[in-house]
């Protein structure tokens, strides 16, 4: 119901946004104030409407529970306000369908649900890297290292590596809380890995290991945001972690639009314009979030572009939050990943010139170890008193999980030529990455063949984000169904094919344009069937709604 209400709000907003007189960015900021709770709201007309409908029209609403201390009306409004579409309504419908499929097979024109909504590779059959898992198994049950039979079941370098890691853990205790930044020896390995990648020094004391990259992003938002007067520049379309985290911490999202026509390019002039606009509204912009390679947009930034971004942050005094979790996922020969730290250092900028946080995760890349919840942030260019505050917040969480920490160190220091596992490691890694490149290409071409659909290439990351030019009739039908047009399309797609994608509105998009995000993660042998189903569905959708 909440989603329905917010969906309604979105329609309302989208309609106002489509009115020509005001520029887009202005309306987008209004969206923020619209979704703000009544107490802090400055747009009295729309807001009460939004919220009164959520509390009174509800069948089985909280009237029976109103005597309880915690009800929907009395919880933190920041919680109500935040949204996370990657696991939103469409996924709930998909889960219901999946349950029903077990007993009610004949009721559907498909026999399985294909989850293309989330970058969760191993749930779609991607196999973990054997060497990594061998080391983790040995560290999970260290008694194995004393058994002679272990040598028959494990590669020799995995045994060596497990010993090496255990020697770095005080008391070899993998069941103990570690230092709140992560085990020092593992941070040494990560720093060495960053150094090898960038050609510039990295300090293990700058590394904060986290349960996936997301907690690191939350930590930085918590530090930067005191109130709605604090703004964070975020790309639109964006990965909704950013909008959700900013909402939870009560700040303001300051959007900058990526240019779809130039392959989701990031224009400095757009950054400047949005920064000025935010300033004129009394918002102090504290940081710029950049996702490279892009999510959901899949573009890989050029080094030149990155230099301009670094200069912009330096000049404007912004913290650069660099989401670099897809750094291993680059699929085109003409693009290469460069870390922002490398770019900044190669421009001659050091600790005193720019505040930079780089996020990395073990959930992406060729490893795709989402369930482990491992990651780190490398924090550079902060004064020691600020660093102490980051450490303190990390310490309230005690530490991140140890197997995630071990895996993060393995990802940054994989087997080397000559190691027992090297050949199989390279074969597994190359196999996964080249297959992802093939899948990205196949899906992109298929999407571009559809009537009214244009799709930029996935240069990197794990997603395609096609633009669908929806007919007016479809938009009207969506409005009648009180749903956003792209969500309407995605629900139809799910019901017809079992394919789960995320509507573009969950990531935000230029008003009046419609997209969806689809991962490139289903296994290669499933791609032809997906292409067929998608093509068939789109044809019949257009036949139904073509203007």
């Amino acid at each position, binding site marked *: *119901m909440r989603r329905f209400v917010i969906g309604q709000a979105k329609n309302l907003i989208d309609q106002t946004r489509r009115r020509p007189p005001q520029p887009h960015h202005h309306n987008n900021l209004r969206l923020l104030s619209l979704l703000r709770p009544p107490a802090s709201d400055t747009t009295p007309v729309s807001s009460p409407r939004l919220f009164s409908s959520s509390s009174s029209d509800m069948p089985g*609403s*909280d009237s029976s529970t109103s*005597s309880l*201390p*915690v*009800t*929907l009306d*009395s919880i*933190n409004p920041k*919680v*109500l306000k*935040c*949204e*996370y579409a990657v*696991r939103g309504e469409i996924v709930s419908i998909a889960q219901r369908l999946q349950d029903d499929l077990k007993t009610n097979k004949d009721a559907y024109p498909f026999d399985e649900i294909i989850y293309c909504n989330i970058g*969760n*590779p*191993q*749930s779609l059959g991607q196999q973990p890297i054997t060497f990594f*898992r061998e080391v983790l*198994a040995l560290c*999970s*049950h*260290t*008694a*194995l290292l004393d*058994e002679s039979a272990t040598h*028959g*079941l494990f590669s020799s370098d995995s045994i060596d590596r497990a010993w090496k890691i255990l020697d770095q853990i005080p*008391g070899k*205790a993998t069941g*103990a*809380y570690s230092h709140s930044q992560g085990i020092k020896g593992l941070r040494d390995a990560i720093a060495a890995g960053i150094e090898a990648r960038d050609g510039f020094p990295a300090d293990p004391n700058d590394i904060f290991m986290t*349960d*996936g990259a*997301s*907690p690191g992003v939350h930590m930085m938002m*918590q530090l*930067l*945001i*005191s109130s709605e007067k604090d703004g964070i520049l975020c790309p639109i379309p964006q990965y909704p*972690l950013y909008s959700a985290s900013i909402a939870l911490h009560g700040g303001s999202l300051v959007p900058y639009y990526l240019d779809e026509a130039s392959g989701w390019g990031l224009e400095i002039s757009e950054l400047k314009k949005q920064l000025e606009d935010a300033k004129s509204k009394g918002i102090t912009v504290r940081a710029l979030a950049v996702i490279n390679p892009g999510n959901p947009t899949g573009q890989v930034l050029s080094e030149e572009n990155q230099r301009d971004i670094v200069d912009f942050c330096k000049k404007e005094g*912004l913290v650069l939050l660099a989401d670099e979790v897809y750094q291993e996922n680059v699929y085109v020969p003409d693009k290469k990943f460069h870390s922002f730290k490398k770019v900044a250092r190669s421009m001659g900028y050091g600790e005193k010139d720019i*505040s930079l946080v780089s996020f990395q995760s073990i959930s992406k890349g060729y490893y795709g170890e*989402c*369930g482990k*919840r491992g990651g780190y942030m490398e924090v550079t260019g*902060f004064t020691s008193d*600020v660093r102490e*505050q980051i450490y*303190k*917040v990390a*310490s*309230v969480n*005690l*530490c*991140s*999980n140890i*197997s995630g920490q071990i895996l993060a160190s393995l990802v940054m220091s994989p087997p080397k030529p000559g190691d027992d596992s090297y050949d199989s490691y390279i074969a597994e890694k190359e196999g996964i990455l080249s297959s992802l490149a093939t899948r990205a290409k196949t899906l992109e071409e298929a999407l571009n063949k559809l009537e009214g659909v244009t799709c930029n290439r996935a240069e990197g990351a794990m997603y395609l984000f096609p633009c669908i030019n929806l007919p007016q009739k479809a938009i009207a039908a969506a409005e009648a169904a009180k749903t956003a047009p792209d969500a309407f399309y995605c629900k139809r797609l799910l019901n017809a094919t079992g394919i789960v994608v995320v509507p573009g509105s969950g990531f935000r998009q230029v008003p009046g344009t419609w997209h969806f995000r689809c991962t490139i993660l289903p296994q290669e042998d499933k791609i032809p069937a997906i292409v067929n189903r998608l093509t068939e569905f789109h044809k019949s959708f257009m036949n139904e709604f073509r203007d």
Partner: protein
Amino acid sequence: MALEYDLLNENVKKCQYAVRGELYLRASELQKEGKKIIFTNVGNPHALGQKPLTFPRQVVALCQAPFLLDDPNVGMLFPADAIARAKHYLSLTSGGLGAYSDSRGLPGVRKEVAEFIQRHMFVVTVCFPHSDPELIFLTDGASKGVMQILNCVIRGEGDGILVPVPQYPLYSATISLLGGSLVPYYLDESENWGLDVNNLRQSVAQARSQGISVRAMVIINPGNPTGQCLSEANLKEILKFCYNEKLVLLGDEVYQQNIYQDERPFISSKKVLMDMGSPFSKGVQLVSFHTVSKGYWGECGQRGGYFEMTNIPPRVVEEIYKVASIALSPNVSAQIFMGLMVSPPKPGDISYDQFARESKGILESLRRRAKIMTDGFNSCKNVVCNFTEGAMYSFPQIRLPPGALQAAKQAGKVPDVFYCLKLLEATGISTVPGSGFGQKEGVFHLRTTILPAEEEMPEIMDSFKKFNDEFMAQYDNGFGYSRM
């Protein structure tokens, strides 16, 4: 510089977390310099030599490397029940340990947790419903769950949370990060850290007179740092109080396996609430927390926990689910540890004897250590200590003589911080000053875990006694004690 200290979120600056504060940092420095440090500051059993239970580690190792399950020689390294259990848990995942699970945790594990809670509540009747897996969320350790729930409850500084003093500083730190108000209620040291409902009433009345709307109450049972176990009668009073005052009760029950006396076994708030029947059983909102970090498991590094919600309206549950989904999912190997904790090997299983032997060995040793420690503290000059009935800590009161207070003042330190630093420098014992947990004004404590190895315990207590004697001799100038 883009981020100046002055510009940081004030709530972050205000927040304090002493368990890893000044003392811990100094201890780490000393350790780097080569001094032997006994870390008794954090309840971190494996760091102090407690061995992990074998069976769960075998199961998780197999889940980490599922290709072992296809190897004909796997039986040479793993018992059959561990192999069967690994297959069972892998079948509950959608892609093994490497795939995100449902944001609330694997449905199959949540079902096992629900069955565990049910087993501990005995009978199922109409007014005594089944525990519902949909109301159980798995988390990366219990702390994450506490933060999620407090985030839901706290809207601003006008919202108050009743917290015991002394308390585990997770609560004060989180409340301050979220910008809420901590409303203290004092545990009575002279009544073995008893919880007096009259104190609660006073605390609530006082907070309300200051315009604070008190919304929730925290109990830690068994107590951290105070080690007391709440009686059933006491829990009933608390639940009635929450009912009358419309407070959500947050029941921190992470030490439920750590009980060192027989008069008051652990009883969960949920069971007491359900036994009380109408109107309480439907009228009190309760969230209970549990973890794999404590008990005889002590698997702190896994970051595994759960919370169970009772009488929380479905639409609020949905909001909590939404916030959980932003963090994607708790780590899957810790979810499997949780599954194993709530459904350990049964009599007749191949691994049962070993599992029972290991877990019993740990608990019995902890019980002996709790006694050695309490007795040791009580034999020291100017030190009095309640018995550790449960949990993992000893929380002795140190009656600091005026000379010590003066010396502390000169050194610019809080008196108990001063004492603990001296203790650390002299003996290598790293403790947490009582001021990190809150205490009555003018009264000083320290917290130490009871986790050092049993064979080292007499030596540790001797070295403490020696330090304390010298400290008291140096500062006790005959003007009496500081205790009010």
